[in-house]
């Protein structure tokens, strides 16, 4: 698998309107709800998706996360973009035109 993703840093992602994304206190986690399905997200995934509001570019999103997790590894750019590509492939998010 190549390192490059198709996610471009100037793109702005939003949660696909078919999914409901929210904090669920009983799980102490962000969850994605869809027809008869539930995905519980780990902390990083939840923090990325929380920023997929359609207003923030991928580069701003990464900068924001770096400020929140200053000790995170240097590879954050790549891993965030890889996650967004996976989330896009699953239909959770879409790039806002």
């Amino acid at each position: 698998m190549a390192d490059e993703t198709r996610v471009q840093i100037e793109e702005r992602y939003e949660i696909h309107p078919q999914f409901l994304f929210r904090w669920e206190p009983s799980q102490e986690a962000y969850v994605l709800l869809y027809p008869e399905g539930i995905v519980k997200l780990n902390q990083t995934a939840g923090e990325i998706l929380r920023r997929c509001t359609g207003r923030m570019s991928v580069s701003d999103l990464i900068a924001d996360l770096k400020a929140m997790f200053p000790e995170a590894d240097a590879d954050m750019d790549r891993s965030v973009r890889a996650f967004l590509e996976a989330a896009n492939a699953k239909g959770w998010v879409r790039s806002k035109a």
Partner: protein
Amino acid sequence: MPKDGSEVRLDGQGNPLWLLLELTYRCPLKCAWCNNPLDFDHYRNELTTEEWMRVMREGRELGALQLGLSGGEPMMRRDVETLVAEASRLGYYTNLITSGIGLDSDRLQALKDTGLNQIQLSIQSCDEALNDELVGTRAFEVKLDVARRIKAHGFPMVLNVPVCRQNIDQAPKILAMAEELSVDYLEFANLQYYNWAMLNREELLPSRAQLQRAEVDVRAARQRLGKRMTIYFVVPDYYDGRPKACMNGWGSIHFTIAPDGTALPCQEARVIKGLAFPSVRNASLEWIWKDSPTFNLFRGEAWMKEPCRTCSDRTRDFGGCRCQAFMLTGDASNPDPACSLSPHHYVVREAVAEANAPGRWPRPLVRRQAGAITTAFAGE
């Protein structure tokens, strides 16, 4: 393919995630595979709106996230919109599971306004004559119309096709119909053989060759449609040799409430005779879930017999379905006979062989209808 690696496997951490409300057993359709009890017409005392409200509140307090409104036909109740409004307020993701009958434009709009999240619509064929023959009433045109209006209202839609011998060969045409309707999720629901489906099993069970052809069609459609439509197709356990991880385990994440308030670990659980199922009319959901003997009966592994007890798959399939074990072997703690390792697996093999025997005498289908059969002599 990109990797995800970010999903966390979700269990309820001991709490229910799914609350299924069977609001009523009343239904305008007469499907020969209905999963409602054979004596459905004996249940007349449906919970009131207030009682369902309390059930939803208590379920949410236990951590349930998904709410299913089902039946029978849930739209037979005039209070669905009221219940959806309360469910939305409580923070559920609400799923309406419907035949489409009774879902007129006013009610659809009211459901949209009260926050319903998605609609699962059943359809039995891509062909009016076959569809209406299978459900025993004129329904096909109504369903198509409802499907279009569901999309026009902007709901995500699951089209649920109960798969049987009579309709499975239409898979390519059904796929095309679903595509034309802009369905988001198409579910080929292989029948689960309980209650009415069990009564008609020999006539409904598709052949292995039919299933294999349908699988090929589904695979091709998945390639063609990609993200546009998600297609579910699970090989029925009768042919798989592996038991289904039924309900993710007894009393694990699923909580079903029958129209009369009976609390069940799964919709079919009443087929197991001799169990006392608690009622929400005289107990809290918390007590039922955590403390009632019936919900605890098949939790964990202590109840398991060999070969389940030492099987490496036991944490994945939980020994299969308790209801099926009871129905086909007479003991709910036996391994599910759908499993090829079960000493009773021959029962399933025989059922498959009988349904596919050359020269078999085809029997009529018994449609779900009050008075069609009597359960008086069947230990009901």
